[in-house]
């Protein structure tokens, strides 16, 4: 096993300021997380070393007890990258503990660790995708098991309470307030249903227009029914109401050319946080975080991250 990395300061944060993140103490929050890359004897690469957080203060810190790689149901080590996520506000992280691969939640700045119920990882962590709610109070779990039998779950961190979702649904993420999740379900007539499922059991479901389901990125608003979609080579924003099946007119969003939208999330009543990436392959990947005014389409840059091939896996806050 050869380690190709470690120690190098490879994440650059542009000094663009943080206008959209008006936290007084945003310096202690994480903008991104990443784990290094090692080459296995068979030439394939895998995650290795420690997960690191890029704090908005400019500092980089190590999450010493987070596992770089996951385990299967029998507890054997795999080459799959370990579960990890950063909340949209950058204050919280979830990861699998290196010692026992149980899921753990704590503040990005450090502090007490909350362990999630052991039952959540009984199928192994290699099949697991984790997401944190925007304020870090809930964790969304999705199992990529072969027979799609294990239902996704929403866990409230403070209480450990688990709400099960429908097995087989593809989960897209939390709504802006973390009270609902957006999911899709493939139907045998080849259409796809989009659902907003609330923790309280409420739900809105529609087979939406093509533009909604074909869009590159979707996000559910805090109201649990309004879906924002960004679609097209010259991206246009539309709002879609899952309770009424109404699709609003498109707004042009003048994003920089050559960048591809890969993630959107509501970050205010009329504001989306949009992530684009460009580069990749042999070149570094540049991730731009921007905000978009949902009424006017106006774009404001927030921050920029650069990731290289030495980083096996990376994510920005809220992905």
């Amino acid at each position, binding site marked *: 096993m050869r380690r190709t990395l470690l120690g190098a300061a490879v994440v650059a944060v542009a000094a663009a300021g943080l206008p959209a993140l008006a936290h007084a103490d945003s310096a202690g929050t994480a903008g991104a997380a990443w784990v290094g890359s090692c080459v296995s004897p068979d030439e394939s690469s895998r995650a290795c070393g420690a997960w690191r957080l890029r704090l908005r203060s400019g500092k980089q810190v190590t999450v010493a007890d987070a596992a770089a790689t996951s385990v299967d149901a029998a507890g054997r080590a795999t080459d799959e990258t370990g579960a990890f996520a950063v909340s949209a506000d950058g204050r919280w992280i979830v990861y699998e503990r290196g010692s026992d691969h149980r899921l753990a939640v704590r503040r990005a700045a450090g502090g007490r660790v909350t362990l999630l119920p052991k039952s959540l990882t009984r199928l192994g962590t290699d099949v697991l995708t984790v997401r944190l709610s925007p304020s870090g109070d809930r964790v969304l779990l999705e199992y990529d098991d072969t027979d799609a039998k294990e239902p996704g779950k929403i866990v409230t961190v403070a209480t450990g309470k688990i709400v099960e979702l429908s097995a087989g649904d593809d989960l897209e993420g939390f709504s802006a307030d973390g009270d609902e999740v957006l999911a899709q379900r493939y139907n045998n*007539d*080849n259409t*796809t249903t989009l659902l907003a499922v609330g923790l309280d059991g409420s739900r809105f479901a529609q087979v939406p*227009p*093509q533009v909604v*389901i074909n869009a*590159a990125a979707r996000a559910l608003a805090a109201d649990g029914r309004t879906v924002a979609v960004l679609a*097209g080579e010259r991206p246009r924003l539309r709002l879609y109401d899952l309770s009424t099946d109404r699709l609003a007119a498109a707004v042009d969003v003048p994003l920089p050319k050559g960048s591809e939208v890969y993630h959107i999330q509501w970050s205010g009543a009329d504001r989306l946080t949009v992530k684009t990436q460009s580069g990749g392959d042999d070149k570094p990947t540049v991730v731009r975080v921007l905000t978009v005014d949902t009424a006017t389409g106006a774009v404001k840059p927030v921050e920029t991250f650069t990731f290289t091939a030495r980083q096996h896996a990376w994510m920005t806050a809220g992905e």
Partner: protein
Amino acid sequence: MKLRILAAVAVAMAVLGVPGQVAVADPGQATGHDRGHDHAQSRGDAIRYASAQGCPQKDGTAVPCGTWRLVSHKGEVTPLKDAQLRALGADGKPVDYAVAPVAVSGDGTRVAYFTKAGHLAVRTVKGGVRVLPKDALPPRTSQYDVTLQLSDDGARLAVVAGRAQVFDTATGARLGTLPRNSVFVGFSGDGEKVLATMDGAESVLEMHVYDPAGRRLLSDTPPQLVSANGPHALHADGRTIAVLVGGTKVKLYDLADGQVVGGHAIKLPKEGTVHKLDWTGDNQVTLHVSQYPTGKATRMTVLQHDVTSGATRVRDSYSMLKDTFVFAACGG
């Protein structure tokens, strides 16, 4: 997730049986089927399908060989002697692996093809040949890049090579050209309109209806039920689309209103591949369903489905010539 709609009528398949041996297509089924078309011509002489033979190579693969053969409903096999079999590439030389396209009209009365001289032609069964103008295709067009499709009555021919053009088969005149980026799907039931799709600006599939001159009559972004399924067929009314949904239903969608306006379940032959859906009456669609049983000749079942009552009956059922490499079946 995007559905590609193929307008191709030629379906490639593996070589079955012994090369050179000409089997008569299932004579037991060759008679007694009835109309579905109100054409004066006796159905028996009409073309059921066109077949190209496959010849095995030293390396075990097969290449098309011989002459395009027209197989009639009576089971007669007639070589289409003046037709190009192996596609000519842009350099004018034949390629080994692909046939020049042919198309048979839904009523089996006409066949469109490339002549050996390299021109597009339409032949009428027991009738003459109409050769299309030399400039019907851009110079240096590879024949394997061309798709031909005749309307149900054979009166119109679509020539798709990049852009789609519509020709009158009686006069050979070009009636119109569809806009760039427009993907030809098929003629309406009466051949007077054209259904096409186009990729829209926001990652959607749009559907358009044109007249033969290429003027757009209707435009719609249909719901997932229509865009995520296929094949599609346009009614003679120029607005109602029939679409096979999930292989189990024929649904009707009104492009002008944006409404699903009906539909019934349909039972298809086991493991059948539907490669054509066409309107053959005001309330009737016809489906061509092929099956590929291992070690046996390809089987074709032609179903008539009443979209009002939901009733389905078998209009025709036959096995292809055993040595068939590629076939082109009728549309409607």
